[in-house]
């Protein structure tokens, strides 16, 4: 299934400095659902660069396996809270945007 991943606000720095991914995601082999929860682990396993992983990059993305506070997940330009959060089942062509809150001014 084709899924688009985009970053806004800086998270791309731990994902090989690439702001947009177009990935082909297969259903997990253990039969678990192809949802956002699975996408998060996939991103750490496959897309995060080794250097970032070695230097605490996971902690900038996840906290206790959940998305870390200060990162908004947007599913096709809509807040994931309106879409079922972690349990949202990915659909062909979805655009998942990870927006880190900025504080600078």
């Amino acid at each position, binding site marked *: 299934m084709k899924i688009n991943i985009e970053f806004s606000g800086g998270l791309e720095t731990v994902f090989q400095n690439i702001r947009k991914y177009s990935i082909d995601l297969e259903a997990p082999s253990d039969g678990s659902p192809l949802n956002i929860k699975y996408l998060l682990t996939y991103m750490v396993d496959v897309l995060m660069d080794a250097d970032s992983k070695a230097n605490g990059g996971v902690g*900038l993305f996840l906290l206790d396996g959940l998305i870390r506070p200060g990162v908004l997940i947007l599913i096709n330009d809509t807040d994931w809270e309106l879409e079922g959060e972690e349990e949202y089942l990915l659909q062909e062509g979805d655009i998942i945007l990870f*927006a*880190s809150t900025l504080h600078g*001014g």
Partner: protein
Amino acid sequence: KESNDFPLSLEEYQRYGRQLLVPQVGMKGQLKLNNAKVLVVGAGGLGCPSLAYLAGAGVGTIGIVDHDTVDISNVHRQFLHSSVRVGMYKVDSAIEYLKELNSNVTYIPYRFGINNENAFKIFSQYDLVLDCTDLPKTRYLISDVSSLLGMPLVSASALKTDGQLAIYNYLEGPCYRCLFPVPPPANSVLSCGDGGIIGPVVGVMGVMQAIEAIKVITGAYEDGSVEGGFIFGLTLLGAYCSPQWKFIRMRGKKNNCKICGEAPVIKRDMIESGQMDYSEFCGSAGPVKTL
């Protein structure tokens, strides 16, 4: 300004003529601007452009809060502060500039930072707050206080090449805490000083704050001037993305919000007494990591 037929002075008619012509402002809007009291917290990269356009538009009273002084590294983006004013309080530098721009406005300087004790006293003298600051703990304090006082909050932020904009505590919309109940880990937070910033990127967000402030003050979201009324969301800028701008519709008020929910647990006295410790809540800023 004696009679109702001529509610503005001749100088004001000339000065504001171009915006009086715009139906969404007009005389009714101009009078609302003239009577409005706006507090701008932070006279830096966001504050400078917001202040220039709010003063230009004739907002009656503008309060400016900033404890900081002008540094040469500010000047590339904070254009109210010229190189010749390095070392001056930003608030004084800004007001020196703004008075020459528009002396019809009353400018009120606060040469210190917003904190638990002074926030309510200062905020309660204004109708609208602009958050132009750059630390999570200040952003939570500003949101909590303005929410408890029922004041709309036009908030923006920027870092490197990206920017964000939202209006909190407005109409039926959420507060900052509804969106971000838990602060980000301290090591994930970068200021413009640490992470860098392109001047016009933060600039454009400050100008957008002025647009939104004018719309809120003149009632554009309530009188049909904005088609569809107020829809809560975030406006995102990625200056190196294509397209550069994105609007994201966001969740509304949260029932369990500690500030604006059904059973709020954070109250004014808890903030003023210091029981609510924003530094502790947001964590001490340890060594800063990559974003």
